[in-house]
C-alpha cells in the first residue's frame, strides 16, 4: 500500500476514488458532488429570480416553475448543504480528535454513495417525465394529487440519500465517542467536533421520522394505502408533523456545523482562544435539544388550536437564548484579539450580523399570531435565506477556503476570494432584505408570477439583481478553484500560521494514515498549547508501531447502485403498461443484496503498515 506516493494514471486515480474508504478522499467526493449540486441549485434559483423579475413574466411556465422551485429547495438542502457539511466533517473531524480514520470506514463510503445515487436519481427526474412539483415540503394532499412521476422521484431519491445520511450520522457519533486520541477529553474537543457530535445525534433522531413519512407517502402513491386519503379515514396532517419533526432539526443540522466552523475560524484569526468555551458547548447541546420541541412553528396556521400554538411559540423563542450566547461569545472572542481579515475570516465576520438578522426574523415568525401574517409569504423566504445563506452558505464558503490547504495542500487565491466575498455579501443582502417587505406587502411565496399594479414590481426587480451578484461571486469562486488547482503551489502544515487544533499539526494534505503516532493532547487547542511551549510538533502518545488500515472496496458503490436501479423499477411499477419493472427491481435488489452478502461472507481484516515503512518516507511523515 505504499503505492500512495507513486504517480498514478487517470484510470487508477478514478478507481482509487470509487473504492476509497479513506475519510479524506470521501471528503473530497462529498465536496465535489455537493459543489456540483450547489451550482445546480443555484442555477434553479436564478431561474426563479429571472421569472420573478417582472410581473406576468413567461420565462418559465407555471407547472415548470413549481418543478424548479421544488428542486431548488430539495437540492439545496439535501444535496448541496448537507453533503458539503459532510465534506467538512470528513475532512476535519478525524484529524481534530487525533484519529487515524472514522469508526466505520466502509460505512462512510457507503453513506457517500447512497447520497450520491439518491441525488442522481432525484435529478434524473428532469429527463424522465418531469421533476417533483409539490414543494420541498411535499404536503400530502398536493403530493398525492400531483400527476406524473415527479413526486415518486422525490420519495425514492430522498429515501436513498436519507439512508446515507443516517449512516454518516451514526458513523460520526461512534467516531467521536470511541476514537479520540489520548488526552482528548470531551471538554477539550474543538467546537467543530462538538457540533459534529450534536448534529450527528440530531440526524440519528430526525431522519427516522422522515423515513417513515416517505414510506407512508410511497405506500399511498404506489400501493394504494390510505394514510393521507381523507375519504378512507386518512389524515394529511400526519405528513406535516412527520415532515417538520424532521424538518426543524434539519435546519439545525445545517447551521450547527457552520457555527462550529466559525468558532474555529474566529479563534484562529483572532489569535485567541474561544471565549466561553464551555458555555459554547452547552449552547450547542441546548440548541440541539430544543430543536426537537419546536417543529409545529411551521404549522401555526394549520389550525392546531391556541394551546398548541402558544406552547410551540414559547418553546421556539427559547432558542434565541443559547443562540444569543453564541453570538456574544464570538464577538468577545474577537474582543481584545489580534484580528486578521483573511477570506475565511471575512465570511465569519460577515456572518455575525447577517445571521443575527435572520435569527431575529425567526423569533418574529415564532410569534404565532404575527406568523399568521408572515406564514407562506416572502417574509419567511427572507428569514430562511438570511439564516441559510448568511449562516450555512457563509459557513461552508468560509470552511472550504479555510480547510482547502488541509484538503489539497494548496491555498486559494486571496484576492479572487475577496472579490467573491464582497459580491456575494452585497448580492445576498440585496436579494433577500427586500423580500421581508414584499412578504408584508402581500406577496405569497411559491407563486410563479405576480400581477402588475400590486406594488410588488420594484422589490422583485431589486431581488433579482442581487441574485446576479451572487451568481457572479460563485463563478469567480469556481475560477479561483481552477486557477489554484492548476498552479498547485504546495504549502506546509499550518499555512494560515495561527492554527490551534490538531489538524494543523500534520502535513497538508495528511498522509493516508493521518498520524504516524497518535498525538498526546494536553489541553484545549492542543496544537496551540504545544506552540506556546515553543514546540513545533505534538508529543506522541504511543511508541511507533504497526498501523492497522482498512481495505478499499467497490462494494459500497455497488450496494448503492443496486438501490438506484431498483428504484427505477419501483417508480414505474405503478404504470400498468410497463412490464419490465419487476425484473428491474429484482436485478437492482440482487445487486444490493449480493454486495451485502459478499461483504458479510468475505472476511475483511484490513492490512498493516509496518513500522519500517513508516520510518522510511520521512517527507510524508507525520509530525506527531
Amino acid at each position: 500500500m505504499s503505492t500512495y506516493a507513486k504517480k498514478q494514471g487517470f484510470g487508477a486515480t478514478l478507481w482509487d476514488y470509487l473504492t476509497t474508504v479513506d475519510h479524506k478522499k470521501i471528503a473530497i467526493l462529498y465536496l465535489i458532488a455537493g459543489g456540483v449540486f450547489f451550482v445546480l441549485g443555484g442555477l434553479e434559483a436564478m431561474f426563479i429570480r429571472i421569472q420573478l423579475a417582472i410581473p406576468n413574466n413567461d420565462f418559465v411556465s407555471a407547472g415548470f416553475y413549481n418543478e424548479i422551485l421544488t428542486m431548488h429547495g430539495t437540492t439545496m438542502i439535501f444535496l448541496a448543504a448537507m453533503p458539503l457539511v459532510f465534506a467538512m466533517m470528513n475532512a476535519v473531524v478525524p484529524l481534530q480528535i487525533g484519529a487515524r480514520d472514522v469508526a466505520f470506514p466502509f460505512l462512510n463510503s457507503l453513506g457517500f454513495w447512497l447520497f450520491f445515487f439518491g441525488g442522481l436519481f432525484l435529478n434524473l427526474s428532469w429527463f424522465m417525465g418531469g421533476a417533483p412539483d409539490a414543494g420541498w415540503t411535499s404536503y400530502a394532499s398536493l403530493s398525492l394529487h400531483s400527476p406524473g412521476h415527479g413526486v415518486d422521484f422525490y420519495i425514492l431519491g430522498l429515501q436513498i440519500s436519507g439512508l446515507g445520511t443516517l449512516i454518516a450520522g451514526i458513523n460520526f457519533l461512534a467516531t467521536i465517542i470511541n476514537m479520540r486520541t489520548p488526552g482528548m477529553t470531551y471538554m477539550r474537543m474543538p467546537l467543530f467536533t462538538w457540533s459534529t457530535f450534536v448534529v450527528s445525534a440530531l440526524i440519528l433522531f430526525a431522519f427516522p421520522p422522515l423515513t417513515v413519512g416517505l414510506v407512508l407517502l410511497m405506500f399511498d402513491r404506489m400501493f394504494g394505502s390510505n394514510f393521507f386519503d381523507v375519504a378512507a379515514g386518512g389524515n394529511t396532517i400526519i405528513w406535516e408533523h412527520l415532515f417538520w419533526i424532521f424538518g426543524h432539526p434539519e435546519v439545525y443540522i445545517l447551521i450547527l456545523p457552520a457555527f462550529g466552523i466559525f468558532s474555529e475560524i474566529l479563534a484562529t484569526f483572532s489569535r485567541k482562544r474561544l471565549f466561553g468555551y464551555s458555555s459554547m458547548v452547552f449552547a450547542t447541546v441546548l440548541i440541539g435539544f430544543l430543536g426537537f420541541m419546536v417543529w409545529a412553528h411551521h404549522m401555526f396556521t394549520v389550525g392546531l388550536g391556541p394551546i398548541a400554538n402558544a406552547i410551540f411559540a414559547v418553546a421556539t423563542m427559547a432558542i434565541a437564548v443559547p443562540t444569543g450566547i453564541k453570538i456574544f461569545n464570538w464577538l468577545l472572542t474577537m474582543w481584545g484579539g489580534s484580528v486578521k481579515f483573511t477570506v475565511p475570516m471575512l465570511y465569519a465576520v460577515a456572518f455575525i450580523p447577517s445571521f443575527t438578522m435572520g435569527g431575529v426574523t425567526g423569533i418574529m415568525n415564532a410569534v404565532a399570531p404575527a406568523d399568521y401574517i408572515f406564514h407562506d409569504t416572502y417574509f419567511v423566504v427572507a428569514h430562511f435565506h438570511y439564516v441559510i445563506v448568511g449562516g450555512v452558505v457563509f459557513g461552508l464558503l468560509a470552511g472550504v477556503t479555510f480547510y482547502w490547504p488541509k484538503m489539497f495542500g494548496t491555498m486559494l487565491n486571496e484576492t479572487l476570494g475577496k472579490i467573491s466575498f464582497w459580491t456575494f455579501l452585497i448580492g445576498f443582502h440585496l436579494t433577500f432584505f427586500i423580500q421581508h417587505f414584499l412578504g408584508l406587502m402581500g406577496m405569497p411565496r411559491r407563486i410563479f408570477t405576480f400581477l402588475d399594479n400590486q406594488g410588488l414590481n420594484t422589490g422583485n426587480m431589486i431581488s433579482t439583481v442581487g441574485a446576479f451578484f451572487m451568481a457572479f461571486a460563485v463563478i469567480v469562486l469556481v475560477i479561483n478553484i481552477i486557477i489554484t488547482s492548476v498552479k498547485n503551489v504546495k504549502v506546509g502544515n499550518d499555512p494560515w500560521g495561527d492554527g490551534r487544533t490538531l489538524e494543523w499539526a500534520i502535513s497538508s494534505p495528511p498522509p493516508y494514515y493521518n498520524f504516524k503516532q497518535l498525538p498526546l493532547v494536553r489541553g484545549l487547542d492542543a496544537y496551540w498549547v504545544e506552540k506556546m511551549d515553543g514546540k513545533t510538533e505534538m508529543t506522541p502518545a504511543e511508541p511507533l508501531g504497526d498501523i492497522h488500515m482498512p481495505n478499499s472496496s467497490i462494494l459500497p458503490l455497488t450496494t448503492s447502485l443496486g438501490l438506484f436501479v431498483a428504484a427505477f423499477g419501483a417508480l414505474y411499477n405503478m404504470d400498468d403498461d410497463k412490464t419490465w419493472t419487476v425484473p428491474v427491481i429484482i436485478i437492482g435488489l440482487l445487486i444490493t443484496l449480493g454486495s451485502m452478502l459478499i461483504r458479510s461472507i468475505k472476511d475483511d481484516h484490513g492490512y498493516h503498515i509496518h513500522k519500517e515503512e513508516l520510518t522510511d518516507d520521512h517527507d510524508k511523515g507525520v509530525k506527531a
Partner: protein
Amino acid sequence: MKRKLHKWRLLPLLGILTFVLSGCGMASLSALRPAGEVAQTQYNLMMLSTIIMVLVVIVVTILFLIVIFRFRRKKGDDTIPKQVEGSHKLEVIWTVIPIVLLIILTIPTVKVTFDLADTKAMDQKDKEGKTKDALVVNVRANLYWWEFEYPDLGVITSQDLVVPTNEKVYFNLVASDVKHSFWVPAAGGKMDTNTDNPNQFYLEFDSQKANEAEDLFYGKCAELCGPSHALMDFKVVAKSKDEFNTWAKEMKAASEPVVEGSLAKQGEEIFNQSCIGCHAVTPNDSRPETARQAPNLATFGERERIAGVLDHTEENLKKWLEDPEVYKPGNTMTGTYGELSDGQINALTAYLMQLKVEEK
C-alpha cells in the same frame, strides 16, 4: 475596505426609509396597512417584535463594529493576545437580557393567540339551527377557485366574498381537493383550508379602512396547491351593514336569470347543455357540496375579475372560454367541454355577462 463596510451597513437603513415613504404597499393588499381589528392586533404584535428585534440587531451591530475596527491586526504584529477563558458576569448578562426581552414578547403572544382563536359565537345557535348573533361564512377552497356559502342566509357566491363592515365575520374553512390557505392580507392573517377538518376563525373589516381601499380587498391562496396556485385570487367586497343586508336579500330572492337578446338566449341554451352540470346560475344552490364542482356564476356579470385574475372584459372572457388552460394551467374546467366555435363563444359571453343579481 473600511469605508466600504461602513456604507454597506447603511444600506438596510436606507431601504427601510424608502419603504416607509412609499406607503408600505397598497391599501387593498398590504398587511402593513391593517384594515380591521384582527389585522391591527397582529400588526401591533408584529411592531412590538420588530422593535425588540431592531434593538437586538443594533446592539449586535455596535459591538460588531467596535470589534472589527478596534482589534485589527497591524502588519507584522506578532504579539499574542491574552488568552481569556470567558467571563461569568458577561455570560449572565447576555443570558438574562434576552430572556427578559422574550418574556416581554411571550405575554402578548400567548394572550393574542387565545383571543384570536375565540370563535365561541359560532356555536350559539337558535332554535332553527341558525347562528344567533354572528355572520358565518363557509369557505370552500377548490383547485383554483373559492366558494363562499352563507349558511344562515341560504346564499352561495364564488370568487367574490361579500362582507359587512365593522362586525366580526366568522369563517368555516375547508378544502375539497388539496390543501389551500385563505388569506386576505389587509384584513388579517391566514388560516389553512385543510382537507381533513374544518378550521374556524374570524376577521373584521373597518369601514373607514375599507373606504381607503375603495371597498375592495384582495384575497389570496397562501398554500402551494398546484400550477395555478399563483392565480388563485379572490376579491373581498366590503359593504356597510345596510348595504350588506340588501345584498343578502336580493341574493336570496334571486331566481333563474332572465337574459335579453337572442345571442344571449342562444348562449343560455349552450350553457344549459354543457355547463350547468358543474356551474349553477342562481345564488341559492341547494345541491350538496360535492355536486358544486365549479364556481357559482349567479353574479358573474358583476364580478371584479374573470377567473380571479383576468380583467373583467368580454375580450378576456372569450379568451378564457376558448382555452382556460392558457390562463390557469391545471384548472379543472379544461377539457370538460368540447371545442367551441366562435359563434358559440360569443353567445356564451353575451349570456354570462348578463348574469347579475344586484342593480338590474
